[in-house]
């Protein structure tokens, strides 16, 4: 079974459950899945649990058929790469060094020369090559977010989870970042999951949408189906209408009930 499979994940702090037996889902290699849902629905928690940053109380997580929910961080990094929401950093490292150290930490056994080539290629792909010798701490928020993206892409794992990876990016960089993720998914055969708030962006760029609400999956399917489902509007507490425009783009209109 290729890709990421998970089911019945339970995560809680004390008696408060953040994820309560989240339903089963499979993320296939080469595809982009958007993880949507209102604030505190459990999107970040689900990603952090899969990446091994939060202990799970129950449930199964498998990547390419290997169960990983009990793996520690080092072996787990071979299966999952996670780009957290916080991209701001005070690190006094050049952009090149920042991506280079990410590659070295993630692939300690790889030849230094291969690593250097991979870093150079990743800087080109993410459009950060012109910034290569700038200090990360001196960059703008959007540029720092691109560096975080490059760190997640430089030594890819079969599963890539990104939490709001375009929140600080301008329009053009948003589009380029999503195209980059699509290329990476296709080229490296990785299953990409992106948590996002921007439904229009999700509708346009995701192959599939998973809607989370109150710690459980409430809808899962093609963007058109999920946005048309009554659960979607209900989860956000709004009236939702999804229509295809003349050019085929999915338009989403939301209004307060």
């Amino acid at each position: 079974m290729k890709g990421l499979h998970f089911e019945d994940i339970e995560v809680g702090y004390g008696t408060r459950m953040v994820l309560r037996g989240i339903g089963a889902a499979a993320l296939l290699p080469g595809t982009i899945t958007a993880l949507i849902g209102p604030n505190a629905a459990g999107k970040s928690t689900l990603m952090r649990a899969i990446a091994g940053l939060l202990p799970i109380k129950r449930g199964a997580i498998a990547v390419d058929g290997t169960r990983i929910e009990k793996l520690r961080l080092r072996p787990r990094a071979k299966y999952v790469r996670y780009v957290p929401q916080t991209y701001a950093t005070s690190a006094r490292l050049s952009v090149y060094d920042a991506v280079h150290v990410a590659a070295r930490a993630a692939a300690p056994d790889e030849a230094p020369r291969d690593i250097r080539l991979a870093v150079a290629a990743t800087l080109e792909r993410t459009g950060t090559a012109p910034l290569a010798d700038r200090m990360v701490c001196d960059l703008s928020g959007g540029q720092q977010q691109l560096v975080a993206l490059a760190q997640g892409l430089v030594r890819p794992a079969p599963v890539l989870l990104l939490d709001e990876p375009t929140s600080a990016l301008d329009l053009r960089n948003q589009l380029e970042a999503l195209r980059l993720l699509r290329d990476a998914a296709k080229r490296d055969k990785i299953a990409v999951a992106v948590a996002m708030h921007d439904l229009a962006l999700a509708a346009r760029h995701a192959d599939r949408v998973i809607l989370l609400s109150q710690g459980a999956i409430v809808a899962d399917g093609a963007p058109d189906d999920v946005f048309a489902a009554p659960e979607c509007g209900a989860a956000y507490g709004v009236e939702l209408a999804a229509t295809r425009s003349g050019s085929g783009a999915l338009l989403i209109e939301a209004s307060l009930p």
Partner: protein
Amino acid sequence: MSDAALASPAQTRIAAAERRRGLVLAGAALAVVALVLVDLGTGPGNIPLADVVRALIDRDAVEIRLGVIVWDIRLPVALQAALLGAMLGIAGAQMQTILDNPLADPFTLGVSSAAGVGASVAIVTGLSLIPGAGPFLVSANAFVFAFGAALLVFFFSVVRGATSETMILFGIALMFAFNALLAMLQYRASETQLVQIVFWMMGSLQRATPERLMAGVAILAAVGGLMWRRRWALTAMRFGDDRAASLGVDPRRLRLETLLLIALLSATAVSYAGVIGFIGLVGPHIARLAVGEDQRWFAPLSALCGAALLSAASIAAKSISPGVIYPIGIVTALVGVPVFLSIVAGRRSVAR
């Protein structure tokens, strides 16, 4: 993918940056050697530097008195200054890294207060924690207490989760506890003992012996080697626990391991020469400004900056007033602050 990817303008600048950092490192190493030489040439007795160098090259070729002064009196002190400076510099760098706080230093978590209590126990009660410590009673006790304090932080962090906040809070609580204990011991001490405690706390490089130097070099080499093996993980920590963890670094475990290594360095340093402040804060700071925080350059340069600063302080301790050797702990701040301010001010004006 071809070599063309490595030949872009940005890549050329990166190669240049790597060369520059290598040069900075080499320059710092030369500065340390020069400062140690000047340190050897400074002191009561007014010996010209040329004579010092002559004595160093061939002890038998110079008169006995000169040989004794250079080899037996000054050399251990000068080498110890560089050695302890390097220990404090690298310990400070890693403490700042694992606590994600540029204001941390090797003594942030109560190590110096604990060492003070250990030394005071030895001075006031004569009780030894290591049987047969003999003339090293005070140092041995200081080491045991300092390392013990770090172990307390370690075990508390294991139980409560090794985040930087947990460590800092517990370390500060520990520091207050040890300060109170120290005050208590001082209150009960006789006047002579009190003077001894105060002098010990001020720090002194004069207690150097060749055996202690060897042991210190071995500790620094071992700890430095273990830190070097973790260089990528430690650098990745600069992006926060989550990003490091996603790259396969276990931040909590790394933090605990590094804490033990730092404790070994700072406990050794404080047991050798008392409390020497400032070096472990400023050494890494200068290194960070010069080469950034990639551990390949940051760690060794922090050690070299620490060594250079403490050698400079050792020179100043002997030069401020002729015939008087001031306690090193007083001088480090006196020397360090102007150096530090000039670097920070110089950097600002360049940035504008």
